[in-house]
């Protein structure tokens, strides 16, 4: 290998952190350099400048960072430009630096130009969020199409049997899974909505400031517990308790894993979602509303029931539907609390399972992504996505409807 070739190769292999680090350094250096240069260009009298020196600095720093990041994203999506990406990035950063330094003069309105760069950052952030969603949907759509080319869609949507078999001839009906999902979510919400809402009403309307200051964080701790810990709680405490004291004495079977176990524990998990959001919303109802009602001789609970809650209803409905989306998407609590057996039954003390659990179990272990048994996971995921989307749209509709009536 000749020395010339060696240098070429090392340059060719320039690691990615070099241009990124260089860009960061150039941005910081550019900030101070531009600020100094701007001050110098006005002969030290910064009143003659169209913007503050620090704003010239900010403009230069952003002019280095933003085009480089844009080049990075574009370059990566074109496969790294055949390995030349690091060099390109260095070039873009250097160009951004030189152009912005060249532009510095007392008349240059660096403040408004920096503002434009900031707008670019904000737009980019929203575009990333939206494109990601679109990307997720499309990747699921492709795989789902593959699935339906191998499996009849009528059987998927309308068959009540779920028995996957990796040697082929599986029955992959979504109905038992949807049933489990909805049943568990319903129990969870039946438990979480009243408890969460009443807790929110107590905290916002009755509790003293001192009680509130420790009770609210205490409830919110529930939101910080990982769901796997809730799952353990369901598995070793709630499940056996429900079996020994309710299911067996009442003759509902002897399974510790049950819809009721998972539903109750999931309900506990959802309490802070409902209570925290509702609490904020109830607090946002103007005091004038309460005064008006109290001034007419209504009691506190009459005021809450007839004035505060109706005024806060759109937000409360939003909170409940958010909790519902969480319940539908929950996996860990179901695996440990309700088991993994796909079954359709009305008995809440029987083990059942949900769509999310089956997505996991179809995709774990030895899988090839060609058989209907694995591809079904994407169809399940897409169905779940459509359901939660529908729920959100419905939530928006409810909120709008009540807004018209109440504001």
């Amino acid at each position, binding site marked *: 290998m000749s020395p010339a070739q060696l240098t070429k190769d090392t340059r060719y292999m320039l690691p990615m952190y070099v241009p990124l680090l260089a860009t960061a350094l150039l941005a910081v250096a550019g900030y101070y350099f531009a600020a100094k240069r701007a001050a110098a260009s006005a002969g030290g009298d910064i009143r003659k400048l169209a913007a503050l020196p620090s704003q010239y600095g900010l403009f230069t720093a952003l002019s280095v960072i933003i085009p480089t990041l844009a080049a990075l994203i574009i370059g990566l999506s074109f496969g790294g430009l055949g390995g030349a990406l690091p060099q390109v990035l260095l070039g873009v950063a250097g160009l951004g630096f030189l152009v912005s330094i060249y532009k510095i003069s007392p008349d240059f309105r660096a403040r408004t130009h920096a503002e434009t760069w900031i707008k670019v950052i904000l737009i980019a952030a929203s575009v990333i969020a939206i494109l990601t969603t679109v990307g997720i949907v499309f990747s699921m759509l492709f795989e789902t199409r593959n699935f339906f080319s191998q499996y009849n869609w009528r059987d998927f949507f309308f068959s009540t049997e779920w028995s996957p078999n990796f040697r082929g001839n599986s029955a992959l009906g979504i109905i038992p899974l949807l049933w489990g999902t909805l049943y568990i979510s319903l129990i969870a919400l039946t438990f979480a909505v009243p408890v969460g809402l009443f807790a929110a009403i107590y905290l916002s309307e009755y509790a003293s400031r001192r009680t509130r200051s420790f009770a609210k964080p205490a409830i919110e701790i529930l939101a910080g517990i990982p769901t796997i810990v809730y799952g353990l709680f369901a598995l070793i405490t709630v499940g056996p308790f429900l079996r020994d004291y309710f299911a067996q004495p009442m003759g509902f079977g002897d399974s510790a894993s049950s819809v009721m176990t998972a539903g109750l524990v999931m309900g506990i998990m959802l309490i802070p979602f409902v209570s925290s959001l509702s609490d904020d919303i109830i607090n946002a109802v103007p005091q004038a509303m309460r005064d008006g009602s109290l001034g007419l*001789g209504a009691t506190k609970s009459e005021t809450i029931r007839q004035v505060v809650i109706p005024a806060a209803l759109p937000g409360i409905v939003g909170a409940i539907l958010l909790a519902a989306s969480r319940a539908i998407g929950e996996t860990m609590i179901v695996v440990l609390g309700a088991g993994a057996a796909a079954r359709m039954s009305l008995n809440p003390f029987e083990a059942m399972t949900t769509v999310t659990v089956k997505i996991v179990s179809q995709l774990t272990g030895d899988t090839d992504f060609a058989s209907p048994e694995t591809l079904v996971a994407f169809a399940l995921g897409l169905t779940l996505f459509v359901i939660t989307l529908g729920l959100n749209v419905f939530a928006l509709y409810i909120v709008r409807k009540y807004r018209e009536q109440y504001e």
Partner: protein
Amino acid sequence: MKDTNMQNPKISAKNVQVYYGDNHAIKDVNVEIADKTVTAFIGPSGCGKSTFLRCLNRMNDTIDICRVTGEIKIDNEDIYDAKVDPVQLRAKVGMVFQKPNPFPKSIYDNVAYGPKIHGLARNKAELDEIVEKALRKAALWNEAKDRLNSPGTGLSGGQQQRLCIARAIATAPEVLLMDEPCSALDPIATAQVEELIDELRQSYSVVIVTHSMQQAARVSQKTAFFHLGNLVEYDDTTKIFTNPDDPRTESYISGRIG
């Protein structure tokens, strides 16, 4: 201060003190308020006039740090007595607030709210009648009769305030407290509400807090001037505005303090 004892006062307050925490907001106020009269409380901001008004229906109870001592009697009954239920009291002593605060309900339900809570109507027909009467009294019936089911919050500011007055009237109160009822309204709406206040005098004892001395002069028969938590002077409105006894009253109405 001039002795203002009257024959049969609707409201009489003796040695009333109000504290917000350590702040002594009302200092030893004595006043007697007549039935079927409009009484105005005037005074600079922070002088305690609204605070005192809110003692009369015990709205101050809703503020934790507020403490009221002394004696306030309505129809010779001490309203701070332990056996008095503040909720019942507020049905008898209605209140209209500074900013119109209609509930997020229909116009009809806004007015029917009080009567429903207190069980004033035996059936829907009676309730309809109460609502219509209250809206007529508040001079809102003609504007609202075709849209009783549309939200009260969709009315204009002046209409909203008249709706709040109708809402207060519907519970059949005997005293009507108004805390700067026109301060959020334009001049035309103000004129309408003032005209209404003058009519309400036929049936109720009206107590109105106002920042506008012209308004006090236009609508009230009696005026009380508050300053720094003290009731400085209380007399016939014409006397207060033409020939006040106290130099502080004189300075205030001529615009030197306030």
